[in-house]
């Protein structure tokens, strides 16, 4: 661990837990971090310091000291470990300080991942209760939200984890995912506010994560598996890029057009705007200008959302709505970013039966992956390695031209004839 630099420590009281930096406040001096208190954007450092000064939790002082040290030495000093709650194998991200001799107050700083409500909705009593339990057992630092969608309660000691969890669980909260299992999901606000929502993603999210709750808590697959649920192809959850299973709303029939609103739009903004900002942006030239009005050729529309975004009053998704399933999204590690690929172009998602059908399909997909995958191989990597056709066969999914951008440009297949 070369490069660490002890001069960073000067000024801070080196005793263990006196609670003083010599300046009369609870915290030790953190001159580097303090520079992050200026400027108009809300400062996480100011927040931490406020919390620490109020609660006088030594852990907070220790963590700020270690963070200051990191800022000086340009190195991180946490290492992992294994802490869980009864019956669970995941959900706590364990952090021990690698330099607890220097910063004994920062010896432990574990995170509890908590699954929020789909759509990240709260009422104030829920949230206050959460804060109270957390302040009681933990540091009081909360990240809203982790990129995978968890409430991250950051900073608790091992021996407080179980009671904290018990209280949270009784208040309706459960741990989120970690390790080689199902992870916490993310949903956009969907039908909770958005006119574009093509299915009830909050409900599907809830049902799906309940269905896999065992695999969230007791991970035993090859690697992680993430769901994200976007109500439409705008994909406000970034599902395609960061989830193995991206459930994206779409529709099969024609875009619904409110002719009056179209006319009003054009009247207000002019035909030029229609051409430059709508028609010319359609990726498949599905829209044409006819006598100063717009005409959409449904069979050429690929449901990109652009014209609906540009003219939200005038255009809406069709009536025959449902989902597309895209699979294999993940970020950079090892193979480079892999965007999810369209696997199931359309499925209805209207009632509980549809949800069941969907979950049965996902079960089969996971079974295939569990068999065919290697250790630490995301499902997208497995599909790429084994082949899309082979995956479709293995998971019992129909092939469809929508799954590819083009037929192959090489003759290198063995056909069954």
């Amino acid at each position, binding site marked *: 661990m070369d490069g660490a630099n002890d001069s960073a420590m000067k000024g801070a009281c080196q005793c263990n837990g006196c609670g003083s930096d010599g300046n009369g406040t609870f915290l030790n001096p953190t001159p*580097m*971090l303090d*520079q*992050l208190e200026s400027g*108009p*954007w*809300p400062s996480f450092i100011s*927040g*931490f310091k*406020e*919390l620490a000064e109020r609660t006088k939790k030594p852990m907070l002082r220790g963590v700020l000291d270690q963070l200051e040290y990191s800022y000086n030495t*340009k190195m*991180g000093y946490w290492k*992992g470990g294994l802490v869980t709650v*009864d019956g669970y194998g995941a959900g706590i991200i364990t952090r021990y300080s690698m330099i607890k001799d220097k910063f004994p107050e920062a010896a432990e700083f574990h995170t509890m991942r908590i*699954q929020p*409500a789909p*759509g*990240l*909705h709260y009422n104030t009593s*829920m949230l206050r209760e959460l*804060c109270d339990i957390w302040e009681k057992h933990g540091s*009081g630092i*909360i*990240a809203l*939200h982790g990129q995978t969608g968890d409430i991250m309660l*950051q900073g608790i000691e*091992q021996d407080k984890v*179980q009671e904290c969890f018990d209280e949270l*669980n009784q208040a*309706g*909260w*459960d741990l989120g995912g970690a390790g080689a299992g199902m992870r916490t*999901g993310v949903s956009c606000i969907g039908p*909770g*506010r*958005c*006119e574009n929502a093509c299915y009830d993603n909050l409900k599907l999210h809830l049902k799906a*994560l*309940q269905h896999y709750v*065992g695999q969230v808590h007791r991970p035993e697959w090859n690697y992680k598996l993430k769901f994200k649920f976007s109500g439409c*192809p*705008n*994909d406000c959850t*970034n*599902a395609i*890029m*960061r989830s193995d299973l991206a459930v*994206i709303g779409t529709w099969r029939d024609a875009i619904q057009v409110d002719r009056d609103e179209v006319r009003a739009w054009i009247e207000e903004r002019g035909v030029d705007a229609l051409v*430059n900002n709508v028609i010319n942006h359609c*990726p498949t030239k599905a829209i044409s200008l006819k006598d100063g009005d717009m005409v959409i050729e449904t069979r050429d529309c690929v449901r990109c959302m652009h014209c609906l975004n540009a003219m*939200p009053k005038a255009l*809406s998704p069709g009536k025959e709505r449902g989902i597309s399933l895209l699979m294999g999204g993940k*970020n*950079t*590690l090892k193979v480079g*970013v892999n*965007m999810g690929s369209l696997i199931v172009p359309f499925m209805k998602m209207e009632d509980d039966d549809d949800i069941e059908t969907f979950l049965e399909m996902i079960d089969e997909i996971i079974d295939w992956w569990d068999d065919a995958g290697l*250790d*630490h191989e995301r499902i997208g990597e497995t599909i790429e390695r084994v082949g899309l056709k082979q995956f479709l066969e293995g998971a019992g999914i129909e092939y469809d031209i929508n799954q590819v951008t083009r037929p192959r440009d090489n003759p290198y297949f063995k056909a069954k004839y």
Partner: protein
Amino acid sequence: MSSQERTWKTKESGPHTYEEALHPVVRKNYGKWKYHEIPKPGVLKHVAESGDAIWTVRAGTPRQDTVDMLRRLCEVADRYSDGFLRFTVRNNVEFLTPNQENVEPMIQELESLGFPVGGTGMCVSSVSHTQGWLHCDIPATDASGVVKSMMDTLYREFKDMQMPNKVRLSTSCCAINCGGQADIAVVVKHTRPPRVNHDHLSTICELPKAVARCPVAAIRPTVVNGKRSLMVDEAKCICCGACFGACPAMEINHPEHSKFAIWVGGKNSNARSKPSTMSIVAHNLPNNPPRWPEVTDVIGRILTAYKAGGRPWERVGEWIARIGWKRFFEETGLTFDDNMIDSYRHARTTFNQSAHVRF
């Protein structure tokens, strides 16, 4: 962690339920929205088929919040939005109210509490980011600090809606990039192969696991001082850092050999063009806490050029697709170099297999 004294059974309930967290007007019009408008920056108006309307006020947060901060937000919600609030996928907080008259007072109060109202429409919204030195076990830098530094310089861009289209930023503290792709992303780049800490390794490492983790088979078993250890074939190694995840003795981080790279053109929406992956446009930027001025400078250049040159609805990557990479580098003053030529698995698909050329 024994459970002897427990008097109740854990409820493996999964996500929290959402019904009780929805505003009654939302519940009434659930799934029946007709359209939306953005009356002003930071404010959305959604109208339902029933004729009901709901106003949303959106504000930025540091994401690394505290119970104090959240309690303040709860107070705002109790006062102006009937006790309901939510967060966006980009760490902004939202208050939904059917009462239009609550909008302005709420904005005032949020601003006075230090929460900038904005983040809607064609703006630079909050940065999706990661753990950094605060919590992760493999970070080469901090994330929250970089984000704070960036957003201080982009405060107006957050509060205005003057960009050609939405601009999404992300920041990640190692090459894994938990922060995700974005229009502009700031990601740590490991610049040299890991140094094997042989002493440490012998005590902690499951050797075959670390060997298997390497995507380019650069790790080989070896013996050092009589103990089984690993060695890295530096010619093969691509500095991905994956081995460190399997074995922390594969030390990939170093104060001088962890630099910043800037990426552009990530897009996840399907609007217009298909989703696109990001491209690297700057690297070797110093990891320079607490304010990382070199990073914010590059971000500023890119945004300035984009704001000036992008056409309405063009995301950063779409703007570049139109003007071409050559002009992108010219207009931002950044430098294309040979390290930016892809050399990885599908590199061939990035070669210019045409005579199309720009001078």
